[in-house]
């Protein structure tokens, strides 16, 4: 019993720290990456004894310390409780959703203890992620409302309408993946992507459902409220949207939520479409290549390799989203709604019907 609790705690700590460290590293990638794209030098001011670490000291040490020591300003005439609650409500669902994503296969510890490397092992993991995505609206709504500021309120309303609209397309693209792999358990979905198509091609989700992947990617970026869907923040119109009136550590929490959302979307893309922790041709005994060659590897090394593969994939898709941000212009609000309801939703629905028909045709009518 106590061992179980310790294992669960360690797993939860690992998962939460992955996403928190990702948030910091992504901040660095965003600032240095945007500088690279715009032909600037980027963050390079802060240093410890002359060591700037290519801006890492700036974004991972100096910035957070500055935020922590800034004055916390609460505007007049606001509901102080809700104003303070909003950043926490915003950050919580993202962290928890990330914890539901498996970051490795079963780890066999000495003494016959098997640990499934997933911080929240749930039979309905897919629904849990969707539930947390739908809770995410509250942080935006509360932040906008509790600031007693018209720009904030507009940002909050824009943000919630946008998130509710794109949640539909996102949910439908996930439904398609559930139908394809026949399970609501995220760990099972990743395991199902381990077999090889035709004996040599890794059976990752994107090969079965390329349309669902595109829909999920676009809806995911819209859910995280980043360019080209960053209308809730729209600096040129709304100052900074729903977190205009926040400063200090509360602003930092909104800022972190942004990057944590990027990491969570990347983790979900990895899990559904790019085989999660799967390494191509790596079986629980070691590498087995299509030609017949095989290589036996220690169990712990395999688990570490799977963990590394998962981190690499998540890092890649986070990087992709950040590069997208500095490449595309912002949409107009009516374009955003038109695209969400009249393009994304029908495409996702048709994709679902076709998938259902194909599954029935392949398996035979029940």
């Amino acid at each position, binding site marked *: 019993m106590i061992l179980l609790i310790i294992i669960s705690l360690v797993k939860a700590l690992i998962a939460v720290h992955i996403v928190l460290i990702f948030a910091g590293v992504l901040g660095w990638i965003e600032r240095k990456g945007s500088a690279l794209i715009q032909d600037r030098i980027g963050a390079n001011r802060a240093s410890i004894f002359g060591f700037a670490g290519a801006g890492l000291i700036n974004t991972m040490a100096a910035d957070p310390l500055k935020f922590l020591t800034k004055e916390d300003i609460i505007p007049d005439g606001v509901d102080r409780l809700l104003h303070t609650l909003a950043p926490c409500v915003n950050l919580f669902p993202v962290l928890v959703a990330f914890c539901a994503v498996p970051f490795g296969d079963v780890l066999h510890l000495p003494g016959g203890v098997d640990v499934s490397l997933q911080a929240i092992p749930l039979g309905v993991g897919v629904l849990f992620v969707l539930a947390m995505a739908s809770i995410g609206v509250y942080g935006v*709504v509360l932040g906008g409302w509790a600031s007693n500021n018209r720009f904030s309120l507009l940002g909050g309303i824009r943000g919630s309408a946008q998130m509710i609209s794109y949640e539909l397309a996102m949910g439908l693209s996930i439904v398609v993946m559930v139908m394809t792999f026949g399970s609501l358990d995220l760990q099972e979905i990743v395991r199902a992507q381990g077999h090889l198509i035709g004996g040599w091609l890794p059976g990752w989700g994107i090969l079965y459902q390329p349309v669902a992947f595109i829909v999920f990617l676009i809806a995911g970026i819209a859910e995280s409220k980043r360019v080209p869907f960053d209308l809730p923040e729209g600096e040129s119109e709304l100052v900074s949207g729903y977190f205009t009136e926040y400063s200090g550590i509360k602003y930092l929490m909104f800022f972190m939520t942004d990057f944590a959302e990027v990491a969570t979307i990347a983790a979900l893309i990895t899990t559904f479409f790019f085989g999660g922790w799967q390494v191509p041709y790596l079986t629980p005994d070691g590498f087995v290549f299509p030609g017949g060659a095989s290589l036996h590897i220690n169990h712990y090394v395999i688990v570490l390799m799977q963990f590394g593969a998962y981190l690499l994939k998540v890092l890649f898709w986070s990087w992709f989203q950040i590069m997208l941000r500095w490449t595309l212009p912002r949409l107009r609000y009516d374009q955003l709604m038109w695209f969400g309801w009249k393009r994304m939703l029908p495409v996702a629905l048709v994709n679902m019907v076709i998938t259902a028909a194909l599954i029935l045709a392949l398996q035979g009518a029940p």
Partner: protein
Amino acid sequence: MSPIVFGILAILLVMSGLGVVLARSPIRSAMSLVMTLFFLAVMFLLLDAQLVAALQIIVYAGAIMVLFLFVIMLLNLQEEPAALGRVGLRYGASFIVSLFVLAAAHFLTTGTLQPGNAMADAVAPGFGSTEQIAERLFTQHIFAFELTSFLLLVAVVSAVVLAKKNLQ
């Protein structure tokens, strides 16, 4: 599940439920309701009903309550002053509610609704799983299920018609 977890959860649940009724500001009351729904979902988890727990959050906390908040925000509802008039009505309502609470307490302590009885029935394997619920829903209760979806369709169409009428 252990009674300690249940106890903590029950206290939180009752407190957030009281928050819905006692909060003066409408938005605080709505947020308390969201919290109540959240704790209720955890309660379902303790009862091995994972699907119901997830749906509880997705449908009620994630969709319906967001619309409530929207209405409160857009109408800019302010804090309600304590209702003073109609004393007779208030006492009458309190009396009826107290009767219901008493009746519920009576059935819980003496009747067949005792928690011990419910626990005594062994939970079948796979109870509350998505497969079982889906099977029941699409075989035994298919007629009611389809009727409900038809009802929702009628509501959606009528909402669109009403919205169009106001535009002209």
